């Protein structure tokens, strides 16, 4: 298979997809807590939206509600402003990609891809033309007459992708489509999905628990936790401006200092009074009493004089982890030895385990987040 993509660069991506608006969407299976709890989210036409979150946080249920496989307990779903809450799945015109591919084993590749076109009663020559076109798009030309069982996992997922986009769906829903593939293939197919999103230009709703995958692919990420949306934003928003402790720790590593705000508005931790820049206090932290100060390992310094606009804490180096491009110092912070990490770049001094240091970071690089 050619690794170089031979397609000509598309002129400005055609944003042709459907807007999907969830309002107060709730699904209760009668368990201790609803699987999806009052989720409101607007997915813009042509947007690549990722539903990210740990296992069991309600991502699949939300996707199935959009697809119409589950019925709403409360709330509503609208496509381009038209309520579809009670529309059966076969009338929603959505492409769907499953983790186990869900190809029809008794049909050939071409027949699988032609399936949605047959259901729409297209003429035979038109079906043949569209099937050939889309198989070229996913780089599977020449396998028309293979059965799914004769293809590798990656090829099967390409067939499923072709089948899900060939009929020009309102949106494409993807439920951990790369979960069953090995690491290398995941990377290739990630790039493929990215390219096809650009070329097809329709709305993508992508479910994953893999933060790296989410960061690489998404226009925006909706981070799920316990059936609720924790935060919605661009990958950069979520990484650089986390609202909650959950967001700060789910995406990337964070050093966490549980802080209690004093009546005078300052934050104290052990015997430190943190200097706080108002711009780093998240809205949700400002609204509540339960907050924490978090700072990324790459923002923590262990050497040099502590500048005025920085917070510092004493630390002991527990271990140095060699990561290839950089090293990570594993730290015990403060009197109680709270676990923390600092990233050491290539030019940093040689630190040794057991060494006492001062860990500091610019005030502007820290985040005050809500813990509840």
């Amino acid at each position: 298979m050619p690794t170089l993509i031979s397609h000509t660069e598309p002129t400005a991506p055609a944003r042709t997809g459907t807007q999907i608006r969830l309002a107060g969407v709730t699904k209760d299976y009668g368990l201790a807590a609803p699987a999806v709890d009052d989720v409101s989210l607007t997915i813009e036409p042509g947007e690549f939206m990722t539903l990210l979150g740990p296992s069991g946080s309600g991502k699949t249920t939300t996707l199935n509600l959009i697809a119409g496989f589950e019925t709403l307990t409360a709330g509503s779903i609208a496509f381009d402003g038209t309520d579809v809450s009670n529309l059966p799945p076969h009338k929603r015109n959505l492409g769907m990609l499953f983790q186990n591919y869900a190809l029809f084993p008794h049909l050939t590749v071409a027949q699988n891809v032609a399936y949605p076109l047959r259901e729409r009663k297209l003429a035979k020559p038109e079906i043949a033309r569209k099937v050939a076109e889309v198989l070229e798009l996913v780089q599977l030309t020449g396998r028309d007459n293979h059965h799914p069982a004769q293809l590798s996992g990656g090829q099967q997922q390409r067939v499923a992708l072709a089948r899900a986009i060939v009929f020009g769906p309102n949106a494409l829903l993807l439920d951990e489509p790369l979960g069953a593939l090995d690491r290398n293939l995941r990377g290739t197919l990630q790039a493929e999905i990215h390219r096809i999103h650009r070329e097809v230009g329709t709305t993508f709703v992508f479910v994953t628990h893999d933060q790296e995958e989410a960061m690489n692919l998404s226009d925006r990420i909706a981070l799920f936790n316990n059936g609720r949306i924790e935060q919605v934003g661009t990958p950069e928003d979520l990484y650089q401006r986390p609202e909650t402790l959950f967001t700060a720790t789910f995406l990337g590593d964070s050093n966490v200092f549980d802080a209690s705000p004093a009546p005078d508005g300052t934050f104290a931790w052990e015997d430190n009074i943190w200097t706080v820049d108002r711009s780093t206090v998240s809205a949700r932290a400002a609204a509540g009493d339960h907050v924490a100060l978090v700072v990324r390992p790459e923002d923590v310094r262990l050497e040099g004089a502590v500048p005025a606009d920085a917070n510092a804490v004493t630390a002991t180096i527990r271990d140095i982890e060699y990561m290839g491009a950089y090293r990570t110092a594993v730290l015990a912070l403060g009197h109680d030895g709270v676990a923390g990490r600092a990233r050491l770049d290539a030019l940093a001094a040689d630190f040794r385990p057991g060494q006492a240091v001062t860990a500091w970071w610019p005030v502007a690089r820290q985040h005050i987040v809500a813990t509840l």
Partner: protein
Amino acid sequence: MTVTLEKPRRATKVDPIPWWLKLVGLAVALYFVLPTLFVIPMSFSTATTFQFPPRGFSLRLYQNFFTNPVWLDALRNSVLIALLAALLATVVGTAAAIGLHNLTGRLARFARTLLMVSIVTPAIVLAVAVYISFLQWRLVGTLGGYVLAHAAIGVPFVLISVTGALGGFDPKLLRASASLGAPPLRAFLTVTMPLISRGIVTGAVFAFVTSFDEVVIALFLRSPALQTLPVQMYNSVTVEIDPTIAASSSVVVTAVTTICLVLQFVGGRRRNR
């Protein structure tokens, strides 16, 4: 797939079946098959009463079977009733299997058991129950009566074989087909049915054969105008002492065996595709 093996075949062979196991297998097979095969030499006998070993060779019994309207009507009735009963049992049994497959819990288990009851109920009990209720509904001696009663005893076989086939069916495929625009009935016809067809066909054949050789209920339902082949066979032995039964038995055994072998062959080929 074509792979040329360089190594001698024996090298790839693992765990051959031991000779004594083959012997036991053969003995058991003969034990099951021999009694059935005895009727075939008898059907070519020249005798006018039952004799074993058969004497002489003639096609007289076959001629009798295929020219006597009593035997021919009975054969035609049996085939018609078995076809209709199998059709009805297959539709009901498949629907029940699919419905129950999606259900869990006590009610579903209860319903499943209820549908299987006719397998473990003594035939005579069923027959009497059918007779009493059909008398009231004026179904005794009617085509509809035979079909309904035989379909009822055929349903469990369809239920078992279709349930088995559904075990290997991935329900995600139905979601896929719905997302691709297929309404539920289309999804069933284009996805579910082709994938569980083996179970459906197996169940249908069992239902057909069950009806075709059913004798107890048929004895109760018979009327001078309408009786099945097994009942005619029963009559020919108990009332008329007519050796034509040997020919009719041979025809039935050969026909049923052929159907089963053909299905096996077709099914096997499809699996290897």
